[in-house]
């Protein structure tokens, strides 16, 4: 179908954008890359009175060094994220995960902030943000507040963004020495949403034992989720053999998958075990070389 009728505003400044969002509250939707919102409009699943198109806010389109980590403007296109040299150096797993989103024409327009604000539980980046301990800035007329990724994703397609707020920046802390990251997923076809996706960030100590672990899952629950029991079992251990198998099993145990036309809950749980094993092992291997 075609989108319903709506008013359209394309502010040139952040002040104008948040003023419009403040004035129209829940009746307004933010249009960034449009790769999730416009399908919702075409299906009439979203019928906002007003679209606030933020594509002219070029001040939200940047990739910067932030201490040892990265600060990314919410309007940064996914294709820019996947090909950014500084991201490939500082946080290659972010480029790896971004490459798995849809297809190139989607990533040309789709934005980092749009992906996170849409909060599809099967999407890659929300889970990765949990694994990377990212923090997100929400800007409104009243000022700015910062939330850890842990508190940002509140339900399927739901976030902590309040009416009047705009997601403006995402910050990813620098990775410790001897840290490796991996994002592995299973899809029916290339570019599809993941049946299950696993983000693993592993830091090894000088003896090659796991000093810090983050494992986060997508596609297997109402929100992206950390598998903290899996992380616990890795600590102080060499990431191999039984430890790896136990971490994979605990990742599968952490899931709350649903059954749908693409896969049953039991199959998704089984896939989680295999996929978590691959992601954790690959992250640990990469940590050895980092």
């Amino acid at each position, binding site marked *: 179908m075609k989108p319903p009728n709506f008013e359209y505003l394309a502010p040139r400044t952040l002040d104008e954008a948040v003023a419009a969002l403040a004035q129209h509250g829940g009746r307004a939707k933010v249009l960034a890359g449009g*790769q999730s919102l416009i399908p919702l409009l075409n299906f009439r699943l979203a019928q906002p009175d007003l679209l606030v198109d933020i594509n002219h806010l070029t001040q939200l389109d940047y990739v910067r060094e932030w201490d040892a980590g990265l600060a990314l403007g919410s309007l940064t296109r996914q294709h820019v994220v996947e090909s950014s040299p500084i991201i490939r150096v500082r946080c290659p797993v972010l480029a790896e995960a971004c490459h798995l989103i849809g297809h190139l024409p989607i990533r040309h327009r789709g934005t980092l902030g749009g992906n996170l604000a849409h909060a599809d539980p099967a999407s890659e980046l929300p889970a990765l943000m949990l694994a990377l301990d990212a923090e997100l800035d929400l800007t409104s007329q009243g000022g700015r507040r910062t939330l850890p990724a842990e508190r940002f994703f509140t339900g399927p397609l739901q976030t902590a963004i309040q009416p009047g707020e705009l997601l403006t920046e995402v910050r990813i802390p620098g990775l410790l020495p001897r840290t490796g990251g991996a994002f592995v997923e299973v899809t029916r076809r290339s570019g599809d949403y993941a049946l299950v996706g696993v983000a693993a960030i592993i830091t090894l100590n000088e003896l090659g034992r796991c000093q810090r672990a983050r494992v986060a899952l997508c596609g297997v629950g109402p929100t992206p989720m950390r598998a903290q029991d899996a992380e616990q079992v890795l600590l102080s251990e060499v990431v191999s053999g039984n430890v790896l198998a136990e971490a994979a099993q605990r990742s599968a145990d952490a899931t709350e998958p649903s059954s749908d036309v693409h896969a049953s809950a039991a199959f998704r749980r089984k896939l989680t075990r295999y996929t978590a094993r691959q992601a954790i092992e690959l992250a640990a291997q990469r940590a050895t070389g980092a």
Partner: protein
Amino acid sequence: MTMIQNISIRLSVNGIQHELAVPPRRLLVDLLRHDIGLTGTHVGCEHGVCGTCTVLVDGESARSCLMLAVQADGAEILTVEGLAQADRLHPLQEAFREAQGLQCGFCTPGMLLISYELLQHNPAPTDDEIREAISANLCRCTGYQGIIEAVQLAATRQAVAAVH
């Protein structure tokens, strides 16, 4: 319900400037087809899955069903009609014809533009790279092998032409 005002936009399509006033809800693909009359760009799924509406926006592939026409204000658009020069088909179009890269033709405009973009950035792609690029687009009749062969044929001819 309040009347929603049309918005004036200017854009270039295949090198020709257009000035139009469109309602905000108008999709770019419908602007191309209905307002400008270029029906070469096809409308398939209308939710960004099939890729037949792919056009280049400022040189980058985009789903024209997932973009509002008002968002193309100031942009340069390339559609399938912009590939041929006068009455000569573009080498990619020639290759699609020769290698049987199309059957019903519904997916062809999108396949041509996504392949055009690929060859611009990667003049000698491997079969896997072609597969990755065209995985953005669905074909339901020819099958993909003929399309891959067509893109390879065009790439080879481009390389030969560059040497001579």
